């Protein structure tokens, strides 16, 4: 392989991408954001939407 500056830079970017994907995978498995995948804030949804935990109004 010809190790010119372009190849070296590309290899460095590949290394960074590899580390990122591994860390992202570990975070998804550990669920650091209390139950979510850690990818986005979709699970902790926006504050303007009311949360409803009980959708059955008939008392037990």
């Amino acid at each position, binding site marked *: 392989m010809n190790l010119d500056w372009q190849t070296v830079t590309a290899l460095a970017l590949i290394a960074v991408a590899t580390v990122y994907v591994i860390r992202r995978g570990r975070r998804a498995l550990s669920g650091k954001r209390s*139950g*979510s995948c850690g990818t986005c804030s979709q699970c902790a949804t926006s504050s303007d*939407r009311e*949360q*409803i935990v009980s959708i059955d109004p008939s008392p037990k």
Partner: protein
Amino acid sequence: MADRTEPVVSTVALIGNPNTGKSTLFSALVGIYQHVGNYPGATVEKKTGRMDYADRRYEFIDLPGLYSLAARSRDEMVAADVLLGRREDCEPVDAVVCIVDAANLRRNLYLVSQVLELGLPTLVAVNMLDVAEKHDVAVDLERLRQQLPVPVVGIQANRRIGIDDLKAAFAELIEQPPHQPETPFPEAFEKEVTRLESLLGEQAGQAGQAGQVPRSLVRRLLLDRGSLLQRSLLEGRSTTIAAELEAARDRLTAADLPVPEVETKVRYAWARRVLDGVVTQPDRYKRTTTDRIDRVLTHRVWGLIVFFLLMGFVFQTVFTGGSHLMDLIGAVFQALGGLVETQMAEGALRSLLVDGVIGGVGGVVTFLPQILILFLFIALLEDCGYMARAAYLMDKLMSRVGLSGKSFIPMLSSFACAIPGIMAARVIENERDRLTTILVAPLMTCSARLPIFSLLIAAFIPAQTVCGRFVTLQGITLLSLYLLGIVSAVGVALLLKKTLLRGATPPFVMELPSYKWPSPRTVLHRVGQRGWIFLRTAGTLILAVSILVWAAIYFPHNSQVVEAPFRARQQASETELARLDPDDTRHAEVSEELAQINREIAGAYQRQSILGQMGRVIEPAVKPLGWDWRIGCAVIASLPAREVVVATLGVIYNLGEDVDAESEEGRTKFHRRLNGATWDGSDPPRKVFNVPVALSIMVFFALCAQCFATLAVIRRETNSWRWPAFTFAYMTTLAYLGALATYQIGIRIGG
């Protein structure tokens, strides 16, 4: 130095039934000073905010909407635990505000009666007085103040009416001592509570355990047979308590006070007494606009027809609405790629930037307009109140497969992303139903599948109109893919309920909120948030995977080995081309020969790459689906996250010059590359992509489990690796068989 004293802080919990305007009131009180977090172990958000008033700071906790403190799920337990100070991550509550709907006081007072038993300083805020007035329901607030032992304030939170009075009432409430806990239960019942309370206290003392169980909690323990609370309170305690608890329940049954039925009777009787002379309403229920609309939208025939027509409209618009913007974004990325190519010398970094980054990420970002349109519609339908009707309609269908409409709401969330849908299944108290919902939620077509659907539909499905000018075959194809997900989910749920997860389905009752005009602020906020998430994912995960895929298809890139067999022919063609005049008749022929040689060299580079060699191994498995090794590699590369497949195809086909880039078919360069792709070694060249192949890829992605994050969440929600492994296995099998059938039937029909 001035003496700066910190304001006294009081923690106030906001509680109420769903759709009483609680969150609106919360926003009205705290404004921008709010924070959203999570309760560990629960899916509900922890919403807190602060307000400064009269030398005091109020920390508000906006509890989730619930009808009763009788917790049937872990999320419902959160509200009760916060009120009782049983959560370590929350400050003890100093006061409670119960928000009630003026038009539904009788049902709302059920929860109020439970809160009053806690003995905390309590205030009742009667909201939505304007809505009550529209229903011709008159509420005598003065009379209500006389009937209830706690302060009552009338408000209209959406118009900020009565908020100042409410704040003044807080200030007074905090200064007052807590009121005596009120209970509507008869003496015989309370005797049993007292007996249990002392038994629990004695046991705690003997075991050296700190803390008496609050009386309100003992009452709940007696009422909630077999509940989460019973399991958690009795854990680690002597079996005597459990036996005494059952004996107490038997005595109550003998005294005509059976649990849990006694609670309903007693609390509604109390509500009737409190509301005596308070509420005046017409004998005949006044039909509202909501009722008139619901006559159609919840009709068992018309409702379903409207639902499918609406979904058809949504998907058709998703497909056609953003095309101009998509073309513009595509053109920008193409221009950027061209600029890099002209400004940089040939080399690995230039290839990475042009073919990897721009080709990969650009291919995905192009779909941003469609993502935004899809989420615009979802936000509009949710905010106006229609989604609750959809859940009601689906309940009828879902009950036939052993699920209730309660499962539809988590499944509906899965149209955006399966992960919040799976977590929302926590509200389903029946464990079998909950597990079934978790296992089928990933089949609902999430937004990550939209880019691959859009790419292939635009490239291979004709744009011919079907019914009138608006509906096209492309829109119908997209709708069909979404329906495939729903139908598969229903089929799998039916199978699971008849085999692995047998059990009866509890009935489903839900409240339908009134229709309202969607709030532009809310809708735009949600759409903007979703767009940002999409771009952030493109700029992070998809970028990283594009780089890795590029590396796998670029290296080892040994030019001396790869180009050697072609060098003589290439040099001969270049020499002849330099010699020929551009007007010479042979010029075009020699140019094409040279272009063909360059395509063969590019193909040779791909074949010798890491990905190319892996592709040889998997090609026999994917060939029956009509896929070549490149499609197979793209599918495998998208295992961590399915939205990566578009970027991967972009990288592979950008690097693969052994396609006829001059093909006229296809609107964009990407489409043309896909259209021009041929099978390795085929002579004459045989195209890889056709309609059956495109459909088989889409069917695969509609049914596959290409999302490690989803599998990880299933593991957490089920506390086992068995269920995510089962999900991956059944979905991959279903996807493979579906793709196989689609392709094999497709080529036989199409020839």
